[in-house]
């Protein structure tokens, strides 16, 4: 039971607890904050696996950009406790069943994988370091890298189309 183990268990418990808090919080802003805590816990796991670059990218992109968007949406749609819509009971059941199915599939898939029984390379894996990542990305994975730009292009076009749907731009101005 060295310090890495202690950190691992602490981070795991933190990640699971905050993920649970995300879905049980009544206030959507609290949910967003708990989700940020979850991302921090996952980043901590990355650091334990010696993948500092992935850890910080996780924080920059998820905690620093995507969660800001979530907050924007919550503020824009004015979601808070008092305006929470009544949810259909059947929908809740359907959601629970779908979630359980996903869990079942994941467990079934992970049960037979080779990962099982292998110890994680704590503090010694090299692939997460930025230099190795750069070499891999720009030699072996060039085509996926270029294709990802098309993905970004479509995302951008989609954002513009949805955001500028209103023909009259002065509408809904604050």
């Amino acid at each position, binding site marked *: 039971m060295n310090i890495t183990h202690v950190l691992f268990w602490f981070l795991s418990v933190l990640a699971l607890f905050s993920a649970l808090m995300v879905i049980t919080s009544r*206030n959507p*802003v*609290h949910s967003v*904050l708990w989700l*940020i805590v979850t991302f921090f816990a996952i980043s901590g796991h990355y650091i334990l696996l010696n993948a*500092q*670059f992935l*850890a*910080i*990218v996780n*924080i*920059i992109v998820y*905690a*620093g*950009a995507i969660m*800001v968007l979530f*907050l*924007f949406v919550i*503020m824009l749609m004015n979601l*808070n406790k008092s305006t929470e819509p009544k949810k259909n009971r059947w929908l809740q059941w359907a959601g629970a069943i779908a979630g359980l199915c996903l869990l079942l599939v994941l467990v079934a898939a992970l049960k037979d994988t080779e990962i099982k029984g292998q110890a994680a390379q704590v503090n010694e894996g090299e692939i997460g*370091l*930025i230099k190795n990542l750069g070499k891999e990305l720009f030699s072996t994975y060039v085509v996926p890298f270029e294709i990802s730009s098309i993905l970004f292009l479509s995302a951008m076009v989609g954002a513009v189309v949805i955001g500028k749907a209103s023909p009259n731009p002065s509408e809904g101005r*604050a």
Partner: protein
Amino acid sequence: MLLTIFWLVIEKLLLIGLIVSLSMVVAMYATYAERKVAAFLQDRIGPNRAGIFGLLQPLADGGKLFFKEEIIPLASSKFLFILGPCLAMITALLTSAVIPWSTPLHLFGQDVPLQVADINIGILFIFGVVSLGVYGIMIGGWASNNKFSLLAAVRGASQMVSYELPMGLALLGLLLLVGDLRMSVIVQNQIEHGWHIIYQPLGFIVFFICALAECNRTPFDLAEAENELNFGYHQEYSSMKLGFYLFAEYINMFISGVVMSCLFFGGYDIPFVNEASWGISQNALAIIGFLVMLTKAFFFVFVFMWIRWTIPRFRYDQLMNLGWKKLVPLALFNMIVTAAVILWLKK
């Protein structure tokens, strides 16, 4: 073995305590400096009542903030209302972690590096913490349950994320030169090959403008535009929580001055001299380096204040145009040219 770990912990704790208190003291005296600079630029005297030259003014201000009654709006979400300023303060304090303040000290027979954490993603750590800086403003402004605070928060958040982009691109030009993300390596590289400002003037200009915008300083202080938004995102705040927002702004300013001097102006390096050949002790060198670093940082803080009291505020559309249509292409151009030159010279 255990003893060395013990010493390491003590050393880091002391360093962290020192850096946190240094940031606080600098932030306090930056408020004083701001008023003195404003007075100087406007041909006034400025604060001169508390102590000699008004030097005790920050203490009086701090004490006042501490003892003021705190008012929490009834309709606000109370937890988020308190969390907002705390987040602003925490993110402001965290940035200082990866900064190499000076050459190592030599104490009790061992070298003590004056850097909290020399992690191998140093510069990205700063970028990450900057990207988290939005939350303090956003959550505080939203939780206040005030139309003006909300508008200011949204403005501030949109502005900060927009200017993060050219900032990151400007950093790329620098990384192409150095080839390492560690802050200590970046400073060392400048000591060996000359300051980065010589190689990256365009990158520095973009970075400087973005630093102004990220700190919410004039001409980018649209989140605190008092004549359109009453007071800005911290309108409903009082007492220590207001103090946190104000302090966080000044800490950010100081730290961005330090970061700029580390990245572009050689950090603790003294130009044109080789201080290692002076034959003075290592500790004296470290202290001189630290003072040099502080001088550079204070110069940038002064420039920030100078700009604030000279230039009027941008309009929001001008702000967005500058960010997206001028700074982003400029920084991209800078990056691609830098890369091409580096590859060409390598041949």
